[in-house]
């Protein structure tokens, strides 16, 4: 059984229908990259996956359980699924180290010393260990995003959601963040990534999904999507973004 099954998912904001009949399955350990033009609904889709947006219809099954029916227990599900945001969203009044060790200590009752050890390890992994005592507003965007990834990893997530993690970064800072994400992919982390980084999609993704106007237009291996897409809209989009 697939780890994550999205069935007939739809979402509207008032009269505006943003997602239409989305069906996606993600296997454990897969890296799925979602591409598509702005306004295609890809971020909304990702946000539905940990219920930051409430779906209007359909089901999302995580390891067989329908998460749209969790009610208050959604916090338990969210602890198992990490999220990385476009604007990093680090906690501004807390140091880098506190940002990373806070949730395990407060939510999983992890021992403070152990959480600190682990946080420092994770910060080492993303290359931010020497900034452990710094505050977020003193860091560059790329540094903040790497801390945000460490923060998500501190909860030992089974799956990570990335919502345009490099879109708010200066071009020269994008590489460091992508490096960290590639490392995670190699280690077998299940990842769903909304991004405009076609190079990353091509190199790292097991599957690429192209979305447009709220539909999943095409879903396949990066080779197929990037070299011989079947759909006209996919072709048009790719020729626009790849021939810039």
């Amino acid at each position, binding site marked *: 059984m697939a780890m994550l099954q999205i069935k007939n998912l739809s979402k509207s904001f008032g009269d505006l229908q943003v997602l239409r009949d989305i069906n996606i399955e993600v296997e454990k350990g897969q890296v799925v990259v979602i591409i598509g033009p702005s306004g295609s609904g890809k971020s909304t889709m990702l946000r539905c996956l*940990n219920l*930051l947006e409430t779906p209007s219809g359909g089901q999302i099954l995580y390891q067989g359980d329908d998460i749209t029916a969790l009610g*208050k227990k959604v*916090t*338990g599900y*969210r*602890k198992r699924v*990490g*999220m990385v*945001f476009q*604007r*990093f*969203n*680090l*906690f*501004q*009044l807390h140091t880098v180290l506190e940002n990373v060790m806070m*949730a395990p200590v*407060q*939510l999983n009752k992890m021992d403070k010393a152990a959480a600190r050890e682990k946080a420092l390890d994770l910060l080492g992994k993303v290359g931010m260990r020497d900034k452990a005592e710094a*505050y977020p*507003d*003193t860091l560059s965007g790329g540094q903040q995003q790497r801390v*945000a990834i460490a*923060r*998500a990893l501190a*909860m030992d997530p089974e799956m990570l959601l990335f919502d345009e993690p490099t879109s708010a970064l200066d071009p020269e800072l994008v590489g460091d963040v992508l490096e960290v994400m590639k490392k995670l992919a190699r280690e077998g982390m299940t990842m769903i990534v909304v991004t405009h980084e076609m190079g990353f999609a091509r190199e790292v993704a097991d599957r690429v999904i192209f979305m447009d106007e709220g539909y999943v237009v095409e879903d396949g291996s990066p080779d197929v999507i990037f070299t011989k897409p079947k759909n006209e809209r996919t072709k048009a989009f790719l020729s626009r973004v790849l021939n810039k």
Partner: protein
Amino acid sequence: MTLYWQKTFSTLGPSLLQGIGVVVYVTVFGFLASLLISLVLAIGRMSKNRPLNRILVLFVELIRGTPLLVQFFYIYYVIPMLLDAFFLLFGVKTGIQIKPVTAGIIGFGINYGCYMSEVIRSAIVSIDPGQREAGLALGYSERQVLFKFIIPPALRNSIPVFGNYLVMMIKDTSLLAMISVQELLLRTKTFASQTFLTVEAYTLLALVYLVVSVPLSRVSVVLEKRIKHRRKS
């Protein structure tokens, strides 16, 4: 006209020093009370409970729509009478009285609490929604997010405005003369009516207020700067 500064200083001066003690006492406790009340009101206003919301809005409008001085009179004279009448219904004679200073603290707490709750509310609204989403995504509940990631930065951002309210409260303690609190104005008034040194007395009074409030406003300006440039250095 001959002015008797020497006499004013030596007689009214020590009395005003005692008055400052009263002013500081009322302001410190009045301000703490208003902080607490404003926080409760701000959080209550954010709840999704409609009737509670309506009641709180009404209460804030009621307080903001009437003068502070009238509220002091109401708390000092009217509330004890109402409480008396209420307990009399159960056959209990209480003879409740509220000390002028206590009435002052309660009045400040409620009045300033209402104004400051609006400050906190707008500070809460202006916190980046990403902070909430990050907390939720980690597995915190809405309530935990509110108390850990929304209210602390909102309060921090409110500090400069709170500073202004503190200075205003110090000056507003002069209203308490009307309910017989022995603060600065009442002491000056008594002195002036006994000695007819009106010019000297009220001039000294104004100076005392200046000496107390100007440094405090300076402190709040410095605090504001420090918050803005926090850890950037």
